[in-house]
C-alpha cells in the first residue's frame, strides 16, 4: 500500500513538473494578426479545461474535413514561387507526398508535405495522401538537397497513415519510415513541421522530427486512428468516438503533453471556411518558428533537437 501511494505521489510530481515546464513554452509568440488575441486567450483557457468527448470528436471531423486546405493549397498561397520536384531517384514518383523548392519570405526554402485531393480521380492518383516508402524517399531526397544548400526546411503533415499495402510492405515501409526520421533529426538546417490535418501515426511522425513542431488548431496527431484503436481495444470500430476521447489526439492535448511546440490558429469555424486566412495564419506561425530556430548555432540547434525528442515521454522510477 505504502509503495503504491509513493508511486502515485511520484507520478503526480513528475506530471506537475512537466506541466510547469510546458507553461514556459511559447504559445504562438509574436503571431502578428490583430483580433487574434481573444481567440488565443480562448485557446489557452481551453487548454486548461479538458475537452469533452464530443469536442474531441469534432476536432477529428474538422481535421478530416474534405474542404480543408491541403499542402498545395497552402503552398500556392504562402510561397511567392514554387517548383515541384518529382521522384525518389530510385523507382517512382509517389504523389501522396509532394516536395519542392519555393520562395518564402523572400528566400529559398524546401518543403515537403502529404497531399490529399478532392476530385475522386486525383484522390486515387495521390492514394488518399497515404504514401509508400517511395514517398518518404522523395521527402528524404528533398531534405538532403536542402541540407546541402542550406535552405530551411518545412514539412506539412496530413495523412491518415503510411499506406498499408502489399508493395508498401515489400518495399520496406517500416525501415524507410525509420530512416526518414533518422535523416530528419540529423539535418544541419533549421526545420519546422506543422500538422495541418491528420497526423496519423508513423507516416506522420516521419515528417515531424523537427526543431519546431506546430499543430493547427483543428488538426489531430495520434498513434493510431480512433477507428483502429476502437477495433482493437473495444473490438468495435463503431466506438471510435470513445477511442478518440481516450487517445486525446487534439491540438490542446498534444500541446499540453509537450509533443507540439505551438498551436496555429485557424479562421473562425475552421480552416475550410477561409483558405486564404488559414494560409496567412499558417505562414505567420511558420515564419515565427523559423526565425526562432534560425538564430541558433547549427550544432546547438541539432543538439537541442536531439534533446527535445530524447526527453519525450512520461514514466516512473
Amino acid at each position, binding site marked *: 500500500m505504502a509503495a503504491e501511494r509513493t508511486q502515485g505521489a511520484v507520478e503526480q510530481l513528475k506530471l506537475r513538473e512537466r506541466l510547469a515546464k510546458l507553461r514556459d513554452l511559447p504559445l504562438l509568440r509574436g503571431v502578428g494578426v490583430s483580433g487574434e488575441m481573444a481567440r488565443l486567450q480562448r485557446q489557452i483557457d481551453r487548454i486548461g479545461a479538458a475537452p469533452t468527448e464530443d469536442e474531441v470528436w469534432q476536432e477529428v471531423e474538422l481535421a478530416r474535413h474534405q474542404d480543408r486546405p491541403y499542402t498545395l493549397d497552402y503552398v500556392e498561397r504562402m510561397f511567392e514561387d514554387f517548383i515541384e520536384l518529382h521522384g525518389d531517384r530510385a523507382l517512382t514518383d509517389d504523389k501522396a507526398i509532394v516536395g519542392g523548392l519555393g520562395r518564402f519570405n523572400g528566400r529559398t526554402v524546401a518543403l515537403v508535405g502529404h497531399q490529399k485531393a478532392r476530385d475522386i480521380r486525383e484522390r486515387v492518383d495521390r492514394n488518399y495522401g497515404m504514401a509508400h516508402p517511395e514517398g518518404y524517399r522523395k521527402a528524404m531526397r528533398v531534405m538532403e538537397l536542402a541540407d546541402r544548400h542550406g535552405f530551411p526546411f518545412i514539412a506539412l503533415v496530413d495523412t491518415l497513415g503510411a499506406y*498499408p499495402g502489399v508493395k508498401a510492405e515489400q518495399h520496406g515501409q517500416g*525501415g524507410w519510415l525509420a530512416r526518414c526520421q*533518422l535523416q530528419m533529426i540529423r539535418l544541419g538546417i533549421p526545420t519546422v513541421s506543422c500538422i495541418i490535418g491528420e497526423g496519423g501515426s508513423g507516416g506522420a*511522425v516521419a515528417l515531424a*522530427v523537427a526543431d519546431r513542431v506546430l499543430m493547427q488548431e483543428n488538426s489531430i496527431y495520434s*498513434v493510431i*486512428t480512433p477507428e483502429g484503436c476502437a477495433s482493437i481495444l*473495444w473490438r468495435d470500430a463503431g466506438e471510435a468516438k470513445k477511442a478518440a476521447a481516450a487517445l486525446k489526439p487534439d491540438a490542446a492535448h498534444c500541446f499540453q503533453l509537450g509533443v507540439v511546440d505551438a498551436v496555429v490558429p485557424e479562421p473562425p469555424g475552421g480552416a475550410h471556411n477561409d483558405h486564404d486566412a488559414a494560409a496567412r495564419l499558417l505562414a505567420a506561425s511558420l515564419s515565427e518558428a523559423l526565425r526562432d530556430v534560425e538564430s541558433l548555432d547549427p550544432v546547438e540547434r541539432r543538439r537541442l533537437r536531439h534533446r527535445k525528442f530524447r526527453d519525450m515521454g512520461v514514466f516512473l522510477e
Partner: protein
Amino acid sequence: MASRIDVSIQHRGPEPEQERKHPNTCPSCHSHYKDEELEANLRVCPQCGHHFPVRARERVIQLADRGTFEEVDGDLRSADPLEFFDLRAYKERLAEAEVATGLGDAMIAGAAVIERRPCELAVMDFAFMGGSMGSAVGEKFVRASERAAARRVPLVCVTASGGARMQEGILSLMQLPKTVAAVDELREARAALISVMTHPTTAGVIASFASLGDVIVAEPGALLAFTGPRVVQQTVKGEKLPDDFGLAESNQRFGHVDAIIPRPELRPYLGRLLALFERNGG
C-alpha cells in the same frame, strides 16, 4: 477508409473463434512438448524447426555468457499520463501484466557478455502487453544506447513487439523519434547496433530503432512488418497475399534483413559479429 489504417497491432490477441492451443503445442506440426524439453531445445520444435516465442529473461540466458548479464533500470515503470481507459483502465492492465510476467515493462536491458565479447543487451518481451512500446520501453532503449555509446561497445537489441502502446496515445508515437535519436547518438559514438528481429516485430518498433541496426538479423518465420497481413488483406480485398507475406523470408528476399539465423546458431553468430565490430580486431 479510416478503419483500414490500423498500424498498431498489439492486443489483437488470438481470434475469439479460434480454439486456444496449448502454448507448448507446435502450431506448425502439432507435436506437443513438456516445458523442460522446449526450454532445453531453445524453444525450437525438434520435429519441424518452428520457433516458439521466447520470454525476455530466457532469451538473456540463451544469449549471454553465464552470469554476465547485469540488469539496470529494472525499477522503471510506465506512468499513465493520459489516464487511459478503454474497457479497463491502463493502470489495471499494467499491474496485471507485471504480475503475469514478473517484468516491470516490455523490455529488460543491461550490460552483458556474449561469447566473451562485452556489449549492452536490450530484450523485449511480447508477453508484456504485446511487447508494446510506451515511454518506459523507449526510455530503457535510450539509456541502453547511451551506455553502449559511453562504453563504446555494441548494443544488441532483440525485438518482439506489436508496436507503439496505444494507451499512452501520442506520447507512445513520440517514442519512435526518441529511439531514433538514440540510434543517431550511438552512430556518432561509432558504437554498433545489432538488431535481432524476432516474431513479431511490427508497426512502431519496425518503424524506428529496430530497422536502424548496422546489422539486422531475423529469426526464421518471424513476422516483420509495418502493417501485418490481416490489416493489409483488408486494404486489398480479393487480392491473395503471398504465402510468406511480411515474414522474415520475404523481408530477406526484398533486401530488408542481412541474415535469417536459426535460434541455435544465434549466439555464435552474434559472437562473431561482436568480434568483427571490436576496434583493432579486439
